[in-house]
């Protein structure tokens, strides 16, 4: 047990050293700032986990978990307090993305998009019980009519919330992953090789 804990500590330390610290903070803040860009361009795009994905690609899963949790906490400090209850979802998103990124999923769009869909399913599965129990499925994300529809069909709150998630989340995460692929594809070599997980972006370099 001792060395497992030790290896956790070293890998966390590796992913949160030097260059990564400010970038993780940026990743968290980016999650909260995408709404402003979407508003400027009047696009119904949500993309509230693109910061977490970029941190996962460049710094690794632990860093992505930190970025996601910090973004969520600050979201509840500055905007809607209940969002802090969704930290488990954010942890799953960060961990999954970090692991998937290591297999170079973000280097091709036809691997990024399906990974996004899987991510969406995972996120829906994890957030459904929380949303069902605490909010009886209401999220104010514009998808609440779906929950009402499934409820009217006689399904339980948990099932209705889960089905709503199955429809909304994979689409949103697929868009987020594809957008991340567009960004990862255009990152500068000189800067990326300074990050702990640079091989996720430039595998062939020394």
């Amino acid at each position, binding site marked *: 047990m001792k060395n497992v804990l030790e290896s956790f500590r070293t890998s966390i330390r590796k992913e949160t050293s030097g260059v990564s610290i400010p970038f993780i903070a940026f990743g968290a803040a980016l999650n909260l700032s995408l709404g402003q860009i979407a508003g400027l361009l009047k696009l119904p795009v949500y993309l509230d986990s693109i910061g977490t994905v970029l941190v996962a690609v460049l710094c690794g899963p632990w860093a992505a978990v930190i970025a996601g949790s910090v973004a969520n906490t600050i979201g509840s400090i500055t905007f809607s307090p209940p969002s802090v209850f969704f930290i488990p979802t954010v942890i799953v998103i960060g961990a999954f993305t970090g692991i998937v990124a290591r297999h170079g999923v973000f280097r091709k769009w036809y691997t990024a998009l399906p990974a996004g869909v899987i991510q969406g399913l995972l996120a829906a599965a994890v957030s459904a019980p929380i949303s069902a129990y605490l909010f009886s499925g209401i999220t104010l994300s514009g998808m609440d009519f779906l929950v009402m529809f499934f409820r009217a069909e006689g399904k339980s709150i948990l099932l209705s919330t889960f089905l709503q998630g199955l429809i909304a989340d994979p689409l949103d995460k697929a868009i987020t992953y594809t957008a991340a692929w567009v960004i990862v*594809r*255009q*990152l*500068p*070599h*000189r*800067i990326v090789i300074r990050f702990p997980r640079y091989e996720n972006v430039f595998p062939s370099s020394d």
Partner: protein
Amino acid sequence: MNLRTKDLHHVYAGDIHALKGISLTIAGGRCVLLLGQNGAGKSTLLKHLNGILKPTSGEVLVGETNTKLHDAAFLAQFVALSFQNPDDQISSKSVVEEAMFGPRNLGKQDPEALAREALRMFSLEGDANTHPYDLHPSKRKLLTIASAIAMDTPVVAFDEPTAGFDVTQRCLFGKALERLKERGKTVILVSHDLDYSLQYCDSVILMDHGSVTFHGDKIHLLSRPDLREILRASGLGLPILCRMSKAIGLRTAPSSVEEFVQLLHDNRTI
């Protein structure tokens, strides 16, 4: 294409009166140096020329187009603005693609040719396929200047272009300014580097707390007896060449090293 502002006022949200009744005419084909302390209203005025900011009262005319009636994307075909921080705009993964961003948006015939020609002016054509962020920060700044020039607009404005440049890069920028003037472009330069900018501009606009304290030919400004006081009002010291020429008793004040040497040469022979 000349630029005209008629009693231009601009009040920012927190009732900060940034521009207090500016009436200016900048004739086509001139290089104008816009001087003033931080907060004098220089960049506010710049942002009115390409319609980013709309006048609170008064008017801004780019040629015959009133900036109130069009948005920035439309006016960008007349006025290209190169901002102080290159990191605010670089959005491509290669130098040539970045330089083509402006011309492509304006629907120019051959954006790549325009881009490559602008890059050649700053000897960046060798880095055409390099990622802008793999370059040294001063080269990124050169790239944003080249991107503005590549838009081939009648009016080009540069905000603090030479900050962080070394001698060779300042020389390259100087040559580019000469080339733009030869092509009859109107060039607007905002800079704190007085000694450098005076070499290339034809006329000067001095601003202080939102109003224009001087607008006229460079020679008029330099030959004014109260030059020191006017400049100090805008937080600026005397240009070094002026201090030198006054100290050794030359009457007229030169604005470049060559001019100074020429003046000395003529004076000695009289």
